[in-house]
């Protein structure tokens, strides 16, 4: 392993950081350095960033406490957003309901029973206006967890912000927009992969040109892990997708160093504490190495892997739900010791239901305890140099590198083609399903203990209180949509959708402006998606 980081390089970067003159001490008064290490070893803020992307890590900037929320109608979710901000949350992240995620309107027959159930229902720009009502979009960064209709929701968001006097240049936030992992793990796809990638390209191009504070793509391993992958697979598949998008942007004529700094990542924070910390370290080392040596990026920011983390939903148990507080706290601590830039902590009731307001507040408080009471923020990469963590980091790096090479070989040297090929033949899904099966088999055999599920059972455990989403929200959302349909100009909607169709046919056009115009005409998500589906077709998963 070639290590470029040295204390002198770190020192120079540290002196330039906002934490240059910071001092920190333990609770008992022992003064501590911003980082510990051997002079010729790796250092944070220095290539290959195994130990973190900033020289002073959390001394210079704490992670963003970005809580994921969404349920019912836009006004209901807006109220939750305000509660999160009032409780000290520093970022917002929107959860959409299943129909929205699949580009289906709330009044569509297929949406029956699903409107506002797993997230907020968004049909038109009017809902977007309600969602962010009273929230300063120039000050709070917002993240949108949406993929197949990402370009449509993004267009609605930008159009709404501009209509409310916020320039697009001022907008900060993240669009998940990672369609590749939908075919691999999460299954919220609409169009086939290639036309979907064209929409990713269009949003990436639009943001790179006009929105310097925006992350148009959050390459997500979270869902791959939740679907059952191992830690090494999570790193490898996510980074493979990341490199695929790098190749996509290059085909679109964007210079690597122009858009790579706007890429961000999203990883799981699972329950195997040291493996997770090693996972983030290995992912940073891999990304930096490949971006510099394989993709020829020249800028430091192109080499740095920035990531959001979320504690593992699958690790939560419906049995003895109070135990989930402990799981989430341990997982959150792993993300912080692993150098996350942003974090969502799950609520203890999420094995059953969407989180209640009280449960979501405790989840946020868990982050605040870690940030402000434990002093783990004083020292960057405090586990660097641990023989165990360094060994795990090296082994995950090696295993993930092997998988990356395998995917690239499937594409005969192209990671993009390799990913598409491996999607078509079910390679990703097969690997993930095998790992999930192995894990569950171990649980069933009692080799893997899960407290409260296969060991340490209680006989007197009370049923979890369920935060029922209001069935009335579904009807009120349908009413709202029918009102918007009545009040808008049908002729204008038709014209704007016709523009979308025409632009969709020309692969060299950027669709975002046409989608923004359609959004302003109050066209629905479903109308825009169906119009594009007529040109792009719909994806059918390979049968296995």
């Amino acid at each position, binding site marked *: 392993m070639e290590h470029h980081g040295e204390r002198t390089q770190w020192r120079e970067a540290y002196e330039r950081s906002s934490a240059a003159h910071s001092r920190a001490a333990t609770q008992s008064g022992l003064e501590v350095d911003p980082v510990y290490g051997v002079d010729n070893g790796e250092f944070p803020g220095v290539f290959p960033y195994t130990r973190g992307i900033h020289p002073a890590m959390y001394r210079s900037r704490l992670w963003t406490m970005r809580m994921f929320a969404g349920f019912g109608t836009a006004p209901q979710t807006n109220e939750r957003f305000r509660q999160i901000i009032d409780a000290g949350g520093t970022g917002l992240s929107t959860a959409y309901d*299943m129909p929205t995620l699949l580009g289906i309107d709330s009044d569509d027959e297929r949406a*029956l*029973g699903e409107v506002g159930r797993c997230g907020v229902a968004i049909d038109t720009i009017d809902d977007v206006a309600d969602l962010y009502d009273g929230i300063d979009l120039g000050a709070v960064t917002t993240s949108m967890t949406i993929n197949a209709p990402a370009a449509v929701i993004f267009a609605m968001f930008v159009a709404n912000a501009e209509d409310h006097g916020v320039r697009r240049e001022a907008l900060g936030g993240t669009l998940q927009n990672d369609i590749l992992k939908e075919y691999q793990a999460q*299954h919220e796809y609409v169009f086939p992969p290639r036309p979907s990638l064209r929409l990713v390209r269009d949003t990436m191009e639009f943001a790179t040109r006009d929105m310097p504070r925006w992350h148009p793509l959050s390459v997500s391993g979270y869902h791959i892990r939740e679907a059952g992958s191992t830690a090494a697979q999570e790193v490898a598949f996510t980074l493979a997708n990341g490199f695929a998008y790098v190749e996509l942007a290059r085909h679109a004529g964007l210079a690597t160093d122009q858009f790579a700094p706007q890429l961000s990542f999203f990883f799981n924070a699972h329950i195997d504490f040291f493996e997770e910390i090693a996972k983030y370290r290995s992912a940073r080392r891999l990304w930096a190495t490949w971006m510099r040596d394989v993709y020829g990026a020249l800028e430091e920011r192109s080499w740095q892997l920035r990531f959001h983390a979320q504690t593992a939903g699958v690790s939560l148990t419906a049995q003895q739900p109070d135990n989930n507080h402990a799981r989430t706290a341990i997982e959150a601590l792993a993300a912080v010791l692993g150098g996350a830039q942003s974090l969502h902590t799950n609520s203890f009731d999420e094995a059953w*239901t969407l989180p209640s307001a009280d449960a979501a507040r405790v989840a946020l408080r868990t982050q605040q305890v870690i940030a402000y009471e434990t002093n783990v923020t004083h020292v960057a990469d405090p586990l660097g140099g641990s023989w165990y963590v360094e060994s795990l980091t090296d082994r995950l790096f090696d295993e993930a590198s092997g998988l990356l090479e395998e995917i690239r070989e499937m594409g005969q040297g192209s990671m993009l083609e390799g990913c598409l090929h491996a999607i078509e033949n079910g390679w990703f899904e097969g690997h993930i399903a095998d790992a999930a*099966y192995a894990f*569950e088999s171990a649980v*069933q055999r009692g080799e893997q203990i899960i407290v409260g599920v296969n060991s340490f059972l209680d006989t007197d455990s009370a049923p979890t209180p369920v935060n029922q*989403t209001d069935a009335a929200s579904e009807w009120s959302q349908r009413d709202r949509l029918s009102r918007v349909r009545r009040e808008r100009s049908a002729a204008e909607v038709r014209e704007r959708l016709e523009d979308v169709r025409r632009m969709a046919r020309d692969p060299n056009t950027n669709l975002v402006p046409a989608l923004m115009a359609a959004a302003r005409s109050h066209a629905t998500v479903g109308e825009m998606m169906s119009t594009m589906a007529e040109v792009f077709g719909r994806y059918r998963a390979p049968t296995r």
Partner: protein
Amino acid sequence: MTLRVLIAKVGLDGHDRGVNVITRLLRDAGMEVIYTGLFQSPASVARSAVDEDVDVVGLSILSGAHLTLVPLVVAALRAEGCDAPVVVGGIVPDSDVAALRAAGVAAVFGPGTALTHIIETLEELHVASTH
């Protein structure tokens, strides 16, 4: 005789970790398992159940839409003349179990249910439905 099981996903719910795992575990236990794939409608599930002549239908649902979708599937099955018992696996709060049973569901398997319990229940249901 080998038990034939149809495992189905209805509605917009794309969560398939559970369904993939249970399909394999039931096969390991010697059952014949047919999996519909994602995004099925109640009518398409009923058609598959009849075409495949299954003994039990298992619905996997984690989206919270079970109270709307499950009764539609049961009704579609019965309309097609399929009497196979229906079981549900996934995220179903205790408070919703009674409503599902009233809609004709024979058993509900929440998260963390032991495989041995699932296998025993399916076998008992099959025996009960053929006598």
